[in-house]
């Protein structure tokens, strides 16, 4: 009845009201998109109304095209590409998250030999990996931590409305990030003499301390199947991703000795390693 001729004045009024674009997505946007998708999918309605909207209401058409991009993932039109080296490293947690979101992505692995050329090609904003790209949605984002925040908020893996829960998740993420940065520093610009000392500091003081605190928190957690709350959060993805990328990495053999003293952490990893594949 929405398009019936008897109610022509109501239809025109509704369409011109709908020209207003709002700053944030509201239920009106979802309603309009639902109807627009209906129009596009139904063959008779598409021939009747599809062209009319494009010609007579260009602003509305532009708005509808923009908002349809938000739902590319739902309609299966998202062509996500993740660029990283051929190892777990920093991108493992992003791969896990994308798989959990049921977002089929292209896992592009760049080899070390090709990296110097690719780096300067202008494709990578900060000349760093990992990069998440989706041409259909117009996204080109870098910085692993920022990407995880973006995906977490969009798909509910970061409890943004509850400050206390958010802090708990972020504590886990930041602690793991500290361990990751500590390991990465050993391969950065550092003098030989300091390397030995930094390595000793890291594996004898910092890592055992962090692991001890993590073990305490795991003991307090009653459910024990998730780190925070009753479902997967960014904390779980960071845990499994960085464990695979750094703790199981043959370049840091010291981790094997340390993890033997923390059985709860090992057990948590064993269980979730199988569940969080990509």
């Amino acid at each position, binding site marked *: 009845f929405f398009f019936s001729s008897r109610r022509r004045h109501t239809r025109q009024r509704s369409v011109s009201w709908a020209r207003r674009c709002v700053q944030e997505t509201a239920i009106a946007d979802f309603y309009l998109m639902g109807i627009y998708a209906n129009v596009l999918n139904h063959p008779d309605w598409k021939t009747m109304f599809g062209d009319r909207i494009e010609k007579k209401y260009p602003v509305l058409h532009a708005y509808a095209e923009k908002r349809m991009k938000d739902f590319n993932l739902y309609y299966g039109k998202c062509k996500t590409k993740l660029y990283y080296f051929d190892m777990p490293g920093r991108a493992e947690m992003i791969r896990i998250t994308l798989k959990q979101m049921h977002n089929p992505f292209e896992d592009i692995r760049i080899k070390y030999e090709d990296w110097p050329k690719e780096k300067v090609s202008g494709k990578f*904003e900060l000349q760093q990996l990992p990069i998440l790209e989706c041409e259909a949605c117009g996204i080109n*984002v870098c910085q692993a931590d*920022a990407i995880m925040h973006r995906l977490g*908020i969009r798909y509910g893996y970061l409890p*943004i409305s509850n*400050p206390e829960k958010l802090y708990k998740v*972020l504590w886990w*993420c930041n602690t793991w990030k500290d361990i990751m940065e500590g390991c990465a520093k050993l391969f950065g610009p550092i003098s030989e003499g300091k390397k030995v000392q930094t390595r000793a500091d890291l594996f004898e003081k910092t890592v055992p301390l962090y692991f001890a605190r993590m073990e305490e928190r795991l003991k307090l957690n009653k459910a024990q199947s998730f780190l925070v709350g009753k479902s997967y959060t960014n904390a779980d993805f960071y845990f499994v991703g960085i464990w695979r990328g750094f703790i199981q990495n043959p370049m840091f053999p010291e981790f094997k000795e340390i993890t033997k003293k923390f059985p709860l952490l090992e057990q948590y990893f064993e269980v979730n390693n199988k569940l969080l594949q990509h």
Partner: protein
Amino acid sequence: QRRVHGDYCLMKLYYFDFPGRGEAIRLTLSHAGVPFEDVRIQFKDWLATKAKLELKQMPVLELEGGKQLTQSYAILEYLGCKYGYLPTNHDEIYRCIFIMNTIEDVFQKAIIYGSPPPVSTLDEKTKEEGMKKLIETDGKLYLNAIERKLIENVSQDFIVGRKHTIADFYLVGVFIHMMHTPKWKELFASHIASGYPLLQSYIEKRLTDFNEYYKKCDYKLYYFVTPGRAEMTRILFRHCKIPFGDIRFTPDQWMKEEKKTGKYELEQLPVLKCEPSGINYSQSDAIIQTLGLKHGLLPVNKPEKLSLIHISEPTRRYAISYAVFCLKKK
């Protein structure tokens, strides 16, 4: 630490006595108007305090109940979420975290290439080359990315969105840290001012938000020659060691020259003014209570708040009994 009735403890922030990682948290709390105790730990006391902390790291935010929060980014996002400085849109939050991580990268490299021997053990030649490379290639890349984010933003007065976010406080904190250390100041300040004018103007605008926090406010207190109603405000300024202009009029001056000029809102004294921040307060009670709130001198407990009214009652010339209204309902 059990919270006993009538026993209120403020939030405490433990950090060193320089900006660094704690400045963003201090700015967030001061902008939100949350009273907190800014505990600054000197280097000589660091080892003793380290033993009491959970992760042997600072900054640490100790909440009212005694719980300790660590990890500066986690604290910043927690406070942002609680007081409305965290955007809920996925794109905006990506930009916030991107900016914070990018600056962190630059900072880490600057520390490696620019610090004296105990902190960085590279030889002088590698340090010089590294610093040069940082300013010319890597630093440029990062600063360009941030300036681009500012240009693409809806408003050029804020780095993300149309209002204050944790990214704004973080950037101001980093800028203050840069100006605080003379070596960074000489290396980077002119570089940013000349190469990134939009970023420079944005930073200057956001710095004006914190004029009072950094005590750059040019306070001027107008009153008569006598102590009178303004003496309590003068005492507060002296107690908090805030420099202020103590402008005193004789009754003749006031009646003939100043009263009718239109500069004084209610044609009454005392008046507190601060040109850069646009402050123009009248009414002695309101002035002292506002300043007290800003500097943590107001009682937080209800019974204590009432006693403030009790004390000010007898000072009035005519009986104004709002204290009676407060007490009337048993």
